[in-house]
C-alpha cells in the first residue's frame, strides 16, 4: 500500500496544481444562487463586500498584471492557507489530547 505521507503529499500537490493552473479557466458564469438572484431580481440587494478587508478580493491577487497569474496566484495562496489552517487546527486538537 502507498505510504500515507506519500498519499497526502500527492493529494496536496494535486490540489495546489488545480488551484494554480486550472482555476483561471473555471466558468465565469454566475453560480446557482447568483443566477436565481438575477432571474428573480434580488441580486441588487447584494452589498458590495467593501466592508470585508479581503486581500485577494474576488479571487484575484493584486500586483500581478497577467489575468491568468492574478487568479492562479490567488488560488494557490488560498489553497496553501487552508492547508496550513487545517493542519494547524488538527495538531492543536490532538496536542490538547496529549496534555491530558
Amino acid at each position: 500500500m502507498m505510504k500515507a505521507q506519500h498519499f497526502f503529499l500527492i493529494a496536496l500537490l494535486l490540489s495546489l496544481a488545480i488551484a494554480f493552473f486550472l482555476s483561471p479557466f473555471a466558468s465565469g458564469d454566475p453560480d446557482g444562487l447568483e443566477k436565481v438572484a438575477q432571474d428573480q431580481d434580488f441580486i441588487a440587494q447584494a452589498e458590495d463586500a467593501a466592508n470585508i478587508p479581503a486581500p485577494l478580493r474576488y479571487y484575484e491577487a493584486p500586483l500581478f498584471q497577467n489575468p491568468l497569474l492574478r487568479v492562479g496566484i490567488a488560488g494557490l495562496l488560498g489553497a496553501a492557507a487552508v492547508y496550513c489552517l487545517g493542519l494547524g487546527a488538527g495538531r492543536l486538537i490532538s496536542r490538547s489530547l496529549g496534555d491530558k
Partner: protein
Amino acid sequence: MHIPDGFLSWEICSAGYLVSAAATVYAVKQLKKESDEKIAPLMGVTAAFIFAAQMMNFPVMGGASGHFLGALLAMLMLGPWAGLLVINLVLIVQCLGFADGGLTALGANTFNMGIAGGLAGYLVFKLLTAFLPQKRSITLIAGSIAAWFSVFAASAFCAVELAVSGTAAFRIVFPAMTIIHSLIGIGEALITTAVLGMALNYRPDIVKALTVRIR
C-alpha cells in the same frame, strides 16, 4: 452558494452564527474524545483540495455555473466533526480572504453548506450503508447519492432563509434554488465518487466514514 451580505435579515444571520458556533464547539469537543493524531495532515490536505475544487466552476444550464461543495467528502474522509471544522475553515478564508460570501452571512453559509449539507449528507451515507455489506461499489454509490443530497439540502435551506428574510417569495425561490442545485449536485456526486474511489484504491484505511460507527 455563498450568500453575500444584504440577502438575509439580521435574525437569520444571528441564528446562523449561533447554530454554527454551537456546532463548531461541539465538533471540537467530539474530536478531542477521539485520540487520532494522524488526522491533522489529512485535515490540511482535504481543506486544500476543497478550496481548489470550489474555485472550479462548471457550466450547468442557461448561463449558470456550479461548483463543488466538498462538505460530504470532507466528512467521509475525516469523520463528521473534523470534516465540519475543515468546511468552516474554508468558508472563513473564502469570506475574509476573498470576499466570497458575506461577513454577516458567514454563520448562515456555514450552516447551509457544513451542517445542513454536510451533516445531512453524512447521515444519508450512514443510513444507506448501515444495513449493506461494506463493499467498494456500495460505498461509492452511497457516497454519490449522499453527495447529491448534501447540495440539494444546502440549497433548500438557503432558499428557506431567503424567503424568511423577505428577500424572495418561497414558492418561487424554493423550486428555483433546488432545481438548479439538483443539477449542480450531479457534479458534486461525480467529484465525490472519483475522489472517494481514489482514496479507496490507495489508502482505504484513511477513509474515516468506513471505520467509525455513527453516534
